[in-house]
């Protein structure tokens, strides 16, 4: 099957430092992928390149066979790539409901129905009218997660979805991600919680110093000498 997303030798430099130094990877539709690596290994920068927040200095990015490097973030979003951020980026002085509505483009009534459904899914329906900035950290994280789902993107990038979310909510969140996969969506997530990565992802990419160190099934990755070395040192 043709890959949904293809990253070809992407390089992104900040000053003299190559945050991403020639990474290639391909995502097949309908699967859950993990992206792991020590702090500063380039995971978030790679996310930013894929979503157009940062512009890649070299290499190509193809979504559904179409070049997307060089497009603006809002254009890439409308092609069907949604994301969350590592640091929460809800709109604090918009209500939880408004945070969801604002990203939609179709009929307003329909959007409201979908927003209420998604709020109910993460048990936030009673806080729909509350300013997002007044919600707890975990609740804001959930709002950001369902905001991505409002427009039904084909590729969903999640930057540390588990951080700061309690166990019960986390399990529901992970269940929601699996359901998305079952609907044919593709998910790529950055995560430090190895339990989450190993339990959820079908393929894991390991980044270290901006380069792809390894790629494979979670079990294989966990046993890989180089990965262990990158994480724990010699």
């Amino acid at each position, binding site marked *: 099957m043709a890959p949904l997303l293809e990253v070809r030798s992407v390089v992104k430099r900040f000053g003299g430092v190559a945050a991403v130094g020639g990474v290639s990877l391909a995502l097949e539709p309908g699967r859950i992928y993990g992206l792991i690596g020590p702090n500063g290994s380039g995971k978030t920068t790679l996310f930013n390149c894929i979503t157009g*927040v940062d512009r890649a200095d070299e290499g190509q990015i193809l979504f559904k066979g179409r070049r997307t490097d060089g497009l603006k*973030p*809002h254009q890439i979003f409308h092609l069907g790539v949604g994301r969350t951020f590592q640091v929460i*980026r809800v*709109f604090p002085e918009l209500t939880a409901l408004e945070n969801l509505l*604002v990203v939609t483009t179709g009929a*307003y009534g329909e959007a409201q129905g979908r927003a209420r459904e998604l709020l109910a899914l993460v048990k936030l329906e009673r806080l729909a009218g509350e300013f997002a900035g007044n919600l707890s950290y975990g609740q804001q994280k959930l709002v950001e997660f369902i905001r991505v789902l409002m427009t039904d993107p084909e590729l969903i990038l999640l930057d540390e979805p588990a951080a700061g979310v309690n166990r019960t909510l986390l399990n529901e969140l992970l269940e929601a991600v699996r359901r998305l996969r079952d609907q044919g969506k593709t998910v790529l997530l950055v995560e430090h919680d190895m339990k989450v990565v190993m339990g959820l992802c079908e393929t894991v990419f390991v980044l270290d110093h901006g380069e792809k160190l390894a790629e494979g099934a979670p079990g294989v990755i966990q046993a890989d000498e180089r990965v262990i070395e990158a994480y724990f040192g010699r």
Partner: protein
Amino acid sequence: MKRGFPVALAVLAVGLALYPLQATGYGVRVMLQLFMWVALAQSWNLISGLTGYVSFGHVVFFGTGAYASSLLIVKLGWAWPLACLGGGVVAAGLAFLIGWPCLRLKGPYFAIATLGLNEVMRVVVSYYEGLTGGGNGLSLPTLDASVEIYYAMGLVAAAVTAVTYVIVTSRFGLRLMTIREDEVAAEAMGIDTHRYKLYAFLLSAAAPGIVGGLSARDQGYIEPLSVFPLIMTITMIVMALFGGKGTIWGPVLGGFVLFAFQEAVWAHFIYLHQLLFGAIIVAVVLLMPRGILGVLQQKYNLPRTI
């Protein structure tokens, strides 16, 4: 409350419409200035209150509108209502030319660019003496139309407030607010922020352009210093901040309270007035950065329509 508010608004509108029938010429002039300030504060609110892009040279649209419509009247002999609308169109055109490049600037850089624009326009108008009369100013044909201008000014103030109402209660308005809240996230969530900022900037420039024309017609004489003063930008900002920026009724409330205050104090203490005005700015920024309505909204969780 829900039904009382529209009723109160309707009563107020009828009262204001009947006011010139029994008022003195002075009273009408004072009220038309109040309308002017409400329209200006509300226009500033459209770009700066909603998107967070602080326009620090907003009076440039007032001055440009004043000159454009005066020239249309003097040189081309247009009827003043049409000329004032023309002033609005020219101001919006200027906003497009300036907004296209400058709205890519973030934070304080945009504010400085707009501040600079105002200075540039003042100099340009002073320089082209042949057309504008330069520093000597421009006189309009004599005409007593203050009652008509009162109604026109009131209409503009009401129209800008109505436009603000429609925007704030729509998805378009929410998108403008996401730019203020977190522009990077707004972009990543599919919002073409540059285009939205430009729309807001055009909308926010049109009314000051019309109001500038009306004010010029009312005064009968304009000069560069009288229609491009920095203090006017500051006044509209303070009015919007005082009432509550980003809200629908905040700039109306702020315009009304501060204008009434200014009129009352101005008459008695000419020098103290500036000092008090400065003190209000400091007090609002320090104690109540959200303004009166912003504080009430936050405290009682009021809907955006208030």
